[in-house]
């Protein structure tokens, strides 16, 4: 049965291959994948709450970590579950948020109607509140039955607690515990070309989480309701609107935080004896420095993507001043700064963030840094180390003479089972050895001058700045970025059927001078970005769960 379906699909596709699609006349057709529930990330959750209820609502609590799949946490979200412990945390968080929203101060602003009596239910007012808030939490208008259920819940709560607002708070809690809030749910709808695409509200979600990393705003939802997102013009209008907002910087920063594995900052530790300058503030600022640099260069300046490996432009804060040895006029806040021509700092791969993140707590690591460049920046997976490595040969007295990392790592080159992978990583990391484990500058190690020369896929360099130039010329870099951006935006890794489309997209990126806003536009206005296959539904619609044995009922 499934086999036949596939044949049918292939026939249909090839028939469609020459159909002119509304945008990008030569945009290759893609099959799409089944939509997957995507669990809200911590940042998306926080942004949603902040956007719906305002920034003074405190969101306290822990979020479960996501798995990194195919290089992105965003892909981990597409398979993430909600364990009992996680739900316990979500429920506590939801309650805390809800009770803040309805407290005496906030209700004046956030609850637009007033109940007839404050000590009992008022379904009319509850209904108004639930419907307006629910639309933003579920990212689409509530259905009639959802509406009824949550209004009833608020009412029953009001009666049980003798307080309209408390009751309303519990109705709101329910909305925030629902999987329809905790997961971004995408719905398939028929497309004009006979295949399927995301429905308007799902498109709104995709657009909003990609560009602003938050729940769709009212304008976007209205556009979805009016069917505007089903037209290229409507999409473009929203895209342009959203790109002019400063919120796009946050959205782009969120993407890079994922791509560059910045969640590692949460557990980053540097030895306080070996690196006394590396204090907590430095860690936080290091991350922000790189993210600000990226958004400035790529979104504000609209520069070539590949400039991120060579740019000397950045931002410095008071806490980073001593590390980079740069005078800071005002220690509070950030100042734009351009490293001088001969500076060893050029390109994000030289930033404190990258150097410190991919090192050990007490020393640098050329292998970790090389691996990070390959995997994060070039999307080249390094195979796992073999299990049976014996270091006995390498731990003899002869090694007392190895003073630099380059000398110590040379053993990798001598052993056949090591050399294959290490030659992909070590030369890259060795270029960065003039940055110690905390990203600080040094010229010697154990009294020996550090040799930072090497070669990346055929291009030689003398130091980390030269490495940046080599990265700039590496075809994998923009391809990797395109790949990651698309995966991040859609929640799935590009499939085989999307290969042609990815090639096309990469070509467009190049033609646009590798300008990220243009890549975003190309992606967001495409058919592929919203192409889905309807999910294979369960024909057995019986209740999936055991009905809980509840003693008390409201």
């Amino acid at each position, binding site marked *: 049965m499934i086999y036949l379906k596939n044949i049918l699909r292939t026939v249909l596709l090839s028939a469609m291959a020459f159909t002119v699609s509304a945008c990008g006349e030569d945009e290759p057709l893609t099959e799409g994948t089944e939509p997957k529930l995507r669990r809200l990330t911590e940042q998306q959750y926080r942004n949603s709450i902040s956007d719906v209820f305002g920034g003074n609502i405190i969101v306290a609590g822990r979020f479960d970590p996501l798995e990194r799949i195919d290089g992105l946490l965003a892909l981990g979200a597409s398979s993430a579950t909600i364990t009992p412990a996680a739900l316990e945390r979500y429920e506590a968080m939801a309650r805390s948020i809800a009770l803040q929203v309805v407290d005496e101060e906030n209700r004046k602003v956030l609850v637009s109607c007033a109940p007839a009596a404050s000590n009992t239910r008022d379904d009319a007012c509850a209904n108004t509140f639930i419907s307006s808030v629910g639309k933003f939490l579920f990212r689409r208008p509530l259905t009639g039955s959802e509406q009824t259920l949550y209004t009833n819940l608020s009412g029953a709560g009001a009666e049980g607690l003798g307080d309209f607002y408390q009751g309303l708070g519990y109705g709101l809690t329910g909305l925030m515990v629902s999987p329809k809030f905790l997961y971004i749910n995408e719905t398939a709808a028929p497309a004009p070309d006979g295949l399927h695409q995301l429905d308007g509200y799902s498109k709104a979600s995709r657009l909003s989480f990609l560009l602003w990393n938050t729940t769709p705003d009212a304008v976007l939802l209205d556009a979805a309701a009016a069917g505007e997102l089903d037209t290229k013009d409507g999409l473009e209008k929203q895209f342009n609107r959203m790109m002019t907002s400063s919120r796009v910087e946050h959205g782009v920063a969120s993407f890079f935080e994922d791509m560059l594995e910045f969640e590692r900052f949460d557990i980053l530790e540097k030895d306080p004896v070996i690196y*006394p300058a590396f204090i907590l503030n430095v860690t936080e600022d290091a991350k922000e420095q790189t993210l600000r640099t990226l958004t400035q260069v790529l979104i504000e300046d609209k520069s070539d993507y590949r400039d991120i490996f060579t740019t000397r432009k950045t931002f410095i804060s008071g*806490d980073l001043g001593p590390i980079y040895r740069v*005078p*800071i006029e*005002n*220690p509070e806040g950030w100042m734009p700064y351009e490293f001088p021509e001969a500076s060893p700092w050029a390109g994000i791969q030289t930033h404190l963030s990258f150097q410190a993140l991919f090192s050990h707590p007490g020393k640098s690591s050329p292998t970790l840094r090389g691996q990070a460049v390959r995997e994060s920046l070039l999307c080249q997976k390094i195979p796992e180390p073999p299990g049976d490595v014996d270091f006995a040969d390498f731990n003899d007295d002869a090694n007392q003479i190895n003073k630099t990392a380059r000398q110590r790592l040379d053993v990798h080159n001598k052993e056949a089972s090591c050399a294959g992978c290490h030659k992909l990583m070590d030369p890259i990391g060795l270029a960065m050895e003039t940055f110690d484990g905390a990203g600080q500058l040094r010229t010697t190690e154990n009294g020996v001058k550090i040799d930072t020369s090497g070669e990346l896929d055929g291009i030689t360099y003398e130091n980390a700045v030269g490495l940046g130039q080599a990265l700039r010329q590496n075809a994998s870099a923009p391809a990797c970025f395109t790949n990651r951006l698309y995966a991040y935006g859609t929640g799935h890794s590009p499939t085989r059927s999307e290969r042609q489309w990815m090639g096309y997209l990469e070509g467009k990126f190049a033609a646009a001078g590798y300008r990220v806003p243009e890549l975003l536009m190309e992606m967001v206005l495409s058919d592929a970005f919203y192409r889905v296959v309807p999910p294979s539904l369960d024909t057995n619609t019986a209740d999936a769960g055991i009905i809980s044995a509840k003693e008390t009922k409201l």
Partner: protein
Amino acid sequence: MKKNMNLRAASAIGALALGTISATATTAEVDTERTIGLVVVSFYTSVYETKYMEECPRGLAIGNDEIWWKSLEPGIRDELTNGGDIEPVTGTRRAMSAKRGPNGEDVCAIPTIVQDPPHKTVQGSISYGMDLDGLSEGAATPKTCSHKNFTSPDGQAGIDNQMYRLLGCTFGWRDSGYVETNANGELIDTSQGVILIEVSDVDDKHNDGDVTVRMYRANDVFPKGAQGNVLPYASYRVHDIPGYGNAAKGRIVDGVLSTDPIEAFLPYYGNLTHSEIHLRDMRMELDLEASEDRAKGIIAGYRDVENFWSYFRKGGYMAVTGQFSCPSMYVAAHELADGYPDPETGECTALSSSYTIETIPAFIIRPEQDDLKTSEVIAMPDTMQLATRGE
């Protein structure tokens, strides 16, 4: 530099607030190529000690507490120590022990109110410091009073350091002493009284015949590393109190910076007391290459005695922790003074002094030169709980 008395008086009325760079000041761009910025992280009176205290043949100075204690009736002594069970002078009693004037006056605030035994002064012949009067013997001159000279530890004769003579046999200033160790700890902990040294117009950081040196009070806190150490290469804005920023001419020879004499006011904070150090003919000698990221050297000059004394007026407890008698030391300070005779009395009003400092690299963020009133020497505002400048 001439003092403009009128301007000092006018500005002493707290007209200047302890604030950030004033709105009208524009920030000079930091010229990292031709400027060396330093921040002082260690500031001690230069005290030369030998292992067996040879420079103090009569022992160390007696502490204020001992004098007070001895002045009490036995019955009262018993009462105060629960029959000898507890230590007599601790905590608040330290300050109390200074209130032994005939009517309970604080003898550190009014050191002439009682007469204590003579202060024990240094009898040795070796000291750190500089030859301030240019004479190898301490003969009197129109600007100085007669005094003995020292020889430096590396053999240089003619060292003028009456301050060492005054403090060198007082426990609080010696290596194991409390007064300055404590003050330095507070300097690092609180970032109060931070001195910035800016060496500009530098063409060659190892040898340069003509550089300019300015000293400022910092207006930013020390950034600390994980071990509590102060981080080098931090940036410090300067206080816009124009008393600082006096420019001295200097030179660097084989990595050692030295400056021509100027009048200087240096911020100082320690032992919970804000004050400043008023030095005339202030000179600096700083080895910029002493060790990696650390310069070491001395600042020398004539320390105004009343300015020196102002530090102790409200700090009676220091006479206990530092082990000296305020009246004794005050008398000795005036007797030992060797600089700037009072035109009327002929008595010298300043002590030749030397301070040992260590610095780490810093970036100094200051207003454009025009905004600094470098030609004036203006008083610090009273709002800073300062001692008065001796008149």
